[in-house]
């Protein structure tokens, strides 16, 4: 029973990471109806930036926040230079661009930082006061940080005029322009935010899976499953889905299929959701009257 509980809680910890990446996917999907397949690699690259900053002598939290800012800028630049010219192109062309980005970020990380596996520190000392027998300080801390990010984002979108303008631009670009919203800038901002969220996820998962260019490959797949389970157009659903996938992955990996093939759990979940409930748990069909 105790082992089961332990697996469950560990699942919640990784689930938080999946939830963050799923949220980043959903943010870009909502405004562009595209899945950014390079989201995971961008997060991995951000984590390498954090690692370099720490190698250069910056303390953890300084590197943490600097990385968030740099990742925001990097993602916004990617949107402006690579994605924006594609805005009226067919979906498959955009998908190819995303895959190109994935390969570029992957190779660039390998080229700049090398393929050897690196240790990445956790900001939460293992003897922290909130460490328990069931969950390590890092697991609890990662969940805490994930939740802080989620609450901040929720408040931003719900309560600020800029957040409202971003939601509006995602829904109806023509009407948004008519009320004075610069839609292109909102998309760029959305990419920036997604990049920043990915960076946090990368820095939280790196102490567990270790840092190398392949770090996020599996994470992206789980996050994608989470986003689909929750409903690809629902931020709250994505978060919930991320946690669900984290727990399922851990439990099924431990008790049913073993760790070797547990990545296929994500694929089974994706297919299952698409067959049974294509809108996901919280994805809503928009109610409209004509």
């Amino acid at each position, binding site marked *: 029973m105790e082992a089961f509980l332990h697996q469950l809680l560990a699942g919640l910890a990784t689930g938080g990471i999946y939830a963050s990446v799923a949220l980043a996917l959903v943010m870009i999907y909502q405004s562009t109806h595209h899945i950014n397949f390079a989201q995971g690699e961008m997060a991995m690259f951000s984590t390498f930036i954090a690692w370099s900053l720490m190698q250069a002598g910056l303390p953890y939290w300084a590197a943490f926040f600097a990385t968030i800012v740099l990742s925001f800028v990097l993602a916004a630049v990617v949107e402006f230079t690579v994605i924006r010219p594609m805005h009226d192109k067919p979906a498959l062309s955009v998908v190819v661009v995303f895959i190109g980005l994935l390969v570029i970020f992957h190779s660039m990380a390998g080229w700049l930082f090398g393929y050897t596996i690196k240790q990445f520190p956790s900001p939460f000392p293992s003897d922290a006061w909130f460490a328990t027998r069931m969950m390590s300080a890092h697991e609890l801390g990662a969940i805490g940080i994930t939740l802080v990010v989620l609450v901040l984002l929720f408040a931003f979108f719900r309560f600020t005029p800029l957040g409202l303008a971003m939601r509006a631009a995602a829904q109806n670009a023509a*009407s948004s322009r008519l009320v004075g919203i610069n839609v292109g800038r909102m998309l760029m901002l959305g990419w920036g935010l997604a990049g920043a969220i990915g960076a946090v996820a990368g820095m939280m998962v790196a102490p567990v899976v270790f840092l190398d260019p392949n770090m996020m490959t599996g994470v992206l797949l789980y996050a994608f499953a989470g986003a689909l389970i929750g409903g690809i157009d629902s931020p709250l659903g994505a978060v919930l889905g991320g946690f669900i996938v984290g727990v399922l992955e851990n439990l099924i990996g431990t008790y049913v299929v073993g760790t070797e093939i547990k990545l296929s759990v994500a694929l089974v979940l994706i297919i299952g959701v698409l067959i049974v409930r294509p809108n996901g748990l919280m994805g809503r069909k928009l*109610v409209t009257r004509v």
Partner: protein
Amino acid sequence: MTSILQTRGLRASYGSTKVLHGIDIEVPEGSVVALLGANGAGKTTTLRALCQMMVRTEGSIELGGQRIDGRSTEQIAKAGVGHVPDGRGTFLGLTTEENLRLGAYARTGRNGRDGVDADMARVYDYFPRLFERRAQQAGTLSGGEQQMLAIGRALMGRPRLLLLDEPSFGLAPLIVKSIFEIMRRINQEERVSILLVEQNARLALQLADTAYLLETGRVVLHGPSEDIRRNDAVRKAYLGE
């Protein structure tokens, strides 16, 4: 009387399809001007051209004496043009109140909140139905309510010029009547100039001070609404008399 809007030789095209062939329209400050014409005459395109929305334009457009052609749609909105578009342009997934708040973005940008609540109270005063529906997803509003919402959203930006595209479209006669009464109040109480595109020529001529008649992208007749109403051709073709 100074004019709030003045176009000279305004041309517009969708891709290679030319729709407007050089039209001159003037909206005197504080007045209501109607654009009449059959389907395909270029009425909606004229409004889109004024906002640089979906069309390529040539010719000059002046808002209160300042050239606005060549600016982007969002800059024109910020300059004080409120556009109630064809199809109402509702943000279907947001609430009624969020739709209205967005209307203020043209004036306050991303930071400001000043005066927004007071403006919203005024919109609710014009359209009490919107107040009842304020927390409701806008996609579930009726057609008439969405039209009210579109007008209210444009008002939230405190426009100098209001462009209205077929506010009567698809609505029951009683609702159309009340919306036109409110537009008259808005014109008088807010001192907002209005350029109105309307299929229902009779209604439009009742509200408007002057009117322009468009045919295949050209102005074929313009003058005070009284004169237009008495014009034989207009009476036959547009008023069914």
